[in-house]
């Protein structure tokens, strides 16, 4: 086997090792929170559930630390492109919900035709917040790419 293939394989194995570690960290944190919540149901000591959240945060921080801390490229360009496309699709769906939903809800509420449940209102406000964040992120990216 030629040298570039051998060293490439070692690099891919290293990448997979890091990704396994990231997953162990993340799922360990989630499992920790789940177990702590389960224990808390039977032993109602708030410290237990706080500890569970701490373990969850630690797991997530571990995931981020490995991801951002290593000089290895852990996700190749196709995986990054898939993530970008999935994000675009998600935003697209939210855009339809906001564009059609918000004016509809306002009109229904203003005319008294229908009382929109507060949970739906809150969700729509949250979605609008996502687009505000998107606009800020877009402006930043535009600034760094011009």
């Amino acid at each position, binding site marked *: 086997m*030629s040298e570039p*293939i051998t060293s490439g394989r070692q690099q891919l194995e290293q990448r997979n090792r890091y990704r396994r570690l990231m997953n162990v960290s993340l799922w360990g944190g989630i499992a920790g929170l789940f177990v702590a919540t389960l224990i808390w149901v039977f032993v109602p000591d708030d410290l237990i559930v706080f500890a569970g959240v701490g373990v969850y945060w630690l797991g997530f921080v571990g995931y981020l630390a490995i991801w951002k801390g290593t000089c290895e490229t852990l996700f190749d360009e*196709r995986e990054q492109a898939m993530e970008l496309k999935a994000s675009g699709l998600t935003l697209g769906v939210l855009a339809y919900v906001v564009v059609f939903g918000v004016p509809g809800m306002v009109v229904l509420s203003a005319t008294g035709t229908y009382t929109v449940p507060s949970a739906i209102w809150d969700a729509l406000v949250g979605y609008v917040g996502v687009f505000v964040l998107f606009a800020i992120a877009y402006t930043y990216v535009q600034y760094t790419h011009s």
Partner: protein
Amino acid sequence: MNNEVRTYREAADLSQGDLAAAVGVSRQTINAIERERYDPSLELAFELAAYFDCQIEDLFEPTLNGTNE
């Protein structure tokens, strides 16, 4: 975009995994390129061309105006 990656890879007697390792992407990425489900970045296209010691246009044929030319 049409491409000849599979032809070049098979001519070099490489598996998808070998080629992936040589250019630093996953085997799935090479598979997706060969099936024309994913167009590689310019950087990866150059890397593939350099690996096979050919020109990019020998490997990739862009689809222009929505038709295969």
